[in-house]
């Protein structure tokens, strides 16, 4: 299955992309996705413990199972205002 992965702020700059399509095995979790992304973009290892993840615009935990077509956002610590 495929999911869309979005990167923001420091993560976007580190990866050099705002969005990628990622192929995943069925039943993959958010944690599985982060492991895969870190392999492909080793620079992410510096950030991965601070990342929050949103799936389809809702915060989720790392055990959440992903589905075909999900929009997964990798969010560094927020700081608006």
């Amino acid at each position, binding site marked *: 299955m495929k999911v869309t992965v979005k990167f923001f702020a420091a993560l976007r700059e580190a990866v050099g992309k705002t969005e990628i399509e990622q192929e995943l095995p069925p039943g993959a979790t958010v944690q599985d996705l982060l492991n895969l992304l870190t392999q492909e973009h080793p620079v992410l290892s510096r950030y991965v413990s601070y990342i929050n993840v949103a799936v389809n615009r809702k915060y989720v935990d790392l055990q959440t199972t992903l589905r075909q077509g999900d929009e997964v956002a990798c969010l560094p610590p*927020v700081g*608006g205002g």
Partner: protein
Amino acid sequence: MTANDGRDAERAKLFEVTSAELSVDEVVGRLADPGVGAVSAFVGVVRGVTDGREVSYLEYEAYPEMAEQTLRQIGDEIRERWKTIREVAIVHRLGRLEIGERSVVIALSAAHRQETFGAVRYAIDRLKEIVPIWKKEVWADGGAKWRSEE
């Protein structure tokens, strides 16, 4: 989802991210209703110095759809917790902002003022906690840094 979804559709958006300059009067105007007697507002302003370092400008970035959704969630939380609050509007600016420009305007209305002060404080604290917006400080000496809440 919320009791006022129908009303919102008929008038100005109450929760928004935008690259346009912010006007406090305009945001306060979004709350207009003859039952309003008190409005409390918070305005974030771009400071010229942080930690003793001169700032040249800020660059704000958001995950826009989720940002507007979490801003709306904050409004819902406030009206759940403080029953006297009639309406909440939060507008956050994105893109490059110069010193002295307004980054965010929060306004909330009530018949009487008592609960508006605690509620506006909650709104900005919560915004900095859950809304997917980021700011990059670009310093006068050329350095730059993404900052999360101190």
